[in-house]
């Protein structure tokens, strides 16, 4: 762990510096435009100061975002509608539900595809086709349809998350379940073991590394799905609603603080999956194996 803090800090610093420079670069044209319209004299120093302190900048400076986050995360009661903690929780809860459902669905599909030939041939192309449907397009319809049968709140949003995140799980799992060496499969054949035994004793363990790689992608996508799902529900609450309303009113600082919060959340979720991965792989003893030799 300690081996990482140094490099991470350096990288973070580099990013922040680029960010500050970017803020000046992107905000300057509008400021200069303003100066010229008002015939004000200006210096570069003044430009940077102004660029980092605009009320509606194109790119807010990091400290502006931090101040806003501080206000909305620490400065508000967590039950308040103005608290980002409250909105994060709304989003996280549908993310997690969606992730759980998506993972379950993805695994089930993968298992079906690997074991049932008719499913392999018929389902796979449609699983793929399903992902080429832009979710934002059908999300409102999903919400309308589910709303008509009385499902509102958490579930419709989670279903959208699930729709997005089952796919990487299916793809990774199918690959993983098919990854055992032919000789390892032959061994199982010699025991005339049942399909479920082959699954639990061979296919499943060899798919675990693939599964975790997919889960990391899936949980990040699942968060995206939850956020997307918040838009057509009338932007009631959640990080997506903050983003949307922020965009609608041109409040870039608010957008960016929601963005940063979203990515921190996602980073944490991915890291959590990473920890689970380390734990499971170490437990399984494959962590040093460097491949199944």
């Amino acid at each position: 762990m300690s081996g990482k803090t140094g490099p991470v800090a350096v990288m973070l610093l580099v990013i922040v510096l680029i960010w500050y420079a970017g803020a000046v670069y992107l905000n300057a044209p509008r400021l200069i435009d303003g100066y010229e319209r008002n015939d004000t004299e200006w210096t570069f120093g003044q430009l940077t100061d102004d660029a980092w302190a605009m009320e509606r900048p194109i790119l807010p400076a990091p400290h502006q975002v931090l101040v806003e986050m501080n206000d909305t995360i620490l400065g508000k009661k967590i039950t308040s509608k103005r608290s980002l903690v409250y909105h994060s929780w709304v989003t996280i809860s549908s993310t997690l539900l969606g992730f759980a459902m998506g993972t379950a669905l993805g695994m089930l599909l993968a298992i079906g595809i690997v074991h049932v030939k008719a499913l392999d041939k018929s389902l796979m192309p449609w699983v793929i086709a399903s992902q080429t449907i832009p979710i934002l397009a059908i999300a409102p319809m999903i919400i309308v349809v589910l709303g008509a049968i009385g499902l509102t709140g958490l579930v419709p949003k989670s279903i959208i998350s699930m729709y997005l995140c089952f796919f990487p799980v299916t793809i990774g799992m199918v690959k993983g379940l098919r990854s055992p060496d032919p000789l390892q499969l032959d061994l199982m054949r010699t025991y005339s073991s049942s399909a479920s035994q082959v699954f639990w004793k061979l296919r499943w363990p060899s798919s675990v590394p693939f599964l975790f790689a997919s889960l990391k992608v899936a949980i990040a996508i699942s968060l995206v799905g939850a956020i997307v799902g918040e838009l057509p529900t009338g932007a009631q609450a959640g990080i997506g609603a903050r983003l949307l309303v922020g965009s609608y009113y041109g409040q870039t600082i608010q957008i960016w603080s929601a963005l940063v919060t979203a990515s921190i959340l996602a980073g944490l979720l991915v890291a959590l999956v990473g920890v689970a991965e380390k734990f499971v792989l170490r437990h399984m003893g494959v962590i040093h194996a460097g491949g199944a030799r």
Partner: protein
Amino acid sequence: AEEVTLQLKWVTQGQFAGYYVAKDKGFYEEAGLDVTIKPGGPDIAPPQVIAGGGADVIIDWMPSALASREKGVPLVNIAQIFKSSGMMLTCRKDSGITSPADFKGRTLGVWFFGNEYPFLSWMSKLGLPTEGGADGVTVLKQGFNVDPILQKQADCVSTMTYNEYWQIIDAGLAPEDLLVFKYEDQGVATLEDGLYVLEENLKDEAFVSKMAKFVAASVRGWEYAAANPDEAAEIVLENDATGAQTEKHQQRMVREINKLVAGSDKGIGFLDPADYQRTVDVLLGNASTPVITKAPEGAWSHAVWNISQGQ
């Protein structure tokens, strides 16, 4: 209590102050109604929601409602809340535009999703094709905000008197730097926020009387908002689940909205058939991209409004 679900056209904001006031102040409750207000958003089409059974009554703009009617969603206007239109096209003075005659070859920002009909009618009236080129105008699908004009990606953008215009001002452009073309002034104004229900429901008397109560209570809300704009703004803020709205902007919005609501001599909510006819004429006048192909029939009804007057 009788249940009513109202689908808004957009997110919770001062534009819908009257309904929130009516709910918050208990006007609906007093009328024996239990009203659910569903906020809208960029990809919620209220006609679709009502067709799918997700709402009893929706707020929509008349061009969109009439177009939907032609597409098979039989919407009927039962009350017209906004008397006048808040639409305008806002241009930068430094772009050199001084009148609609200068639009040729320019880039204009327009909202779509059924909100483009008034614009298309206007351009058709001006004889400007919207496919771009030197003789026409280049149209951009304007996103959520007014960035295109701030960044000079467009010469003009669509704005509402009560919302986007002030965002431009807040972003640092002064009113003197801007030139606005109000649709009202250009003679292409169409009716905006009105209440619409499905035609078949109007055959049901219970429904009509329920709507009458709803309209009456909503109008009370609007009257209250007109008298107490700041309190109305406060109520809107409280109902905003995102907590992202600002007080300053909403107070200003409610005041602007009140201007649009006012002006009907029969009282808030009355649809003046003359206004209706003007809207239809504007829409039918658009030859190149027809919004509606023929004058609609039965697209409005005073039945609900008349009963509501008795409440």
